[in-house]
């Protein structure tokens, strides 16, 4: 007879790895789709999930493979990329703490149309499809939060498409820096430090240009005093100027 006690085993395993084994202790608590669940329901999620750390470069799922669940990012950053028929890789978005991944494939039952790769060391929880579907049916707050998430994803995708048609590369770069400021910016005095380290290739891929072009425009933005750089860390020094430069108004 099998006697599984997921709670105990999860706790002992997680303590060894010093991970936030319970959803209530998650660093991104308050930002996820399960945050409105009751204490007991959240405990049930904690008991069912699989908690892991992914090292930089490890993949959570791969384009073309079958989906089997949803990933909740506890901390760290993950890039979602698509490889076209020409073999070129494009970053379609950066997911970070509180975000979920793999949710769209769950509902469409299509194979993954993108690959998720850790940009830095990440802590990620996994919940299988059947369990998510059970939650969607029994917990209205989870359904509403998932629909809201899908809606925001769709809005972001539409904005990205229009940005590609309506803005030039300079404006798209300025816009990217402002978006990174919103998602990863940490205020330091009068400026914002971007708490994410993307390579020039990754940034170029996000705005759909060549690395050389991106480097040229980054230098321009630095000369204009909109941004500065210390080592690999980028700072937004003049948000207002960058907003004007990006041709957008928030």
């Amino acid at each position: 007879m099998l006697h599984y006690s997921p709670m105990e085993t999860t706790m002992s395993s997680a303590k060894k790895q010093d991970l936030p084994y319970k959803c209530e202790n998650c660093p991104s608590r308050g930002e996820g789709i399960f945050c409105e669940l009751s204490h007991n329901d959240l405990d049930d999620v904690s008991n069912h999930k699989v908690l892991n750390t992914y090292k930089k470069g490890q993949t959570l799922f791969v384009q073309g493979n079958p989906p089997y669940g949803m990933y909740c990012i506890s901390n760290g950053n993950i890039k979602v990329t698509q490889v076209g028929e020409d073999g070129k890789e494009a970053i379609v978005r950066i997911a970070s703490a509180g975000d979920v991944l793999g949710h769209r494939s769950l509902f469409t039952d299509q194979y993954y149309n993108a690959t998720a790769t850790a940009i830095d060391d990440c802590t990620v929880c996994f919940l299988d499809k059947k369990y998510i579907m059970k939650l969607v049916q029994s917990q209205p707050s989870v359904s509403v939060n998932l629909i809201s998430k899908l809606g925001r994803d769709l809005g972001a995708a539409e904005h990205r498409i229009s940005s590609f048609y309506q803005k030039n590369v300079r404006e798209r770069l300025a816009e990217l820096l402002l978006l990174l400021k919103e998602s990863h910016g940490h205020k330091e005095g009068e400026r914002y430090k971007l708490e994410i380290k993307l390579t020039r290739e990754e940034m170029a891929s996000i705005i759909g240009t060549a690395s050389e072009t991106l480097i040229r425009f980054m230098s321009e933005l630095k000369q204009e005093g909109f941004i500065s750089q210390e080592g690999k860390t980028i700072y937004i020094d003049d948000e207002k100027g960058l907003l004007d430069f990006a041709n957008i108004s928030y």
Partner: protein
Amino acid sequence: MERLSPDEMNIILDHVQPRDYGTMTEVIYEGQIPNVGYLIVDGTIDLYKRKKPFKALGVGQLIGVGELMNNHNFRYTAVIHPGTKVCILDRSTIFELLDEFRDDEVKKYFEHDCA
């Protein structure tokens, strides 16, 4: 590592539809708790220990199920070959199978880690 007999495989195949993997993929990383377990229906999964090839697993073999159900870290990196067909055994599915086949021999395979 033990291999499920065709009859034992059929019990799982009756409940879980096999899925194809189109690209070579690291499905479990060494040191992680597997997100799901796998039953190989066709093709091969290679195990690596500290990036060195350790063993190739084939049809009828289960991977990661014991570790998943016991929250144990997997001791290898498992790499699935393109064209390999597997039954994906997540926690919910395994609990369902255990409920349904409480006295069946199949359940013993869900207890043990990948040796």
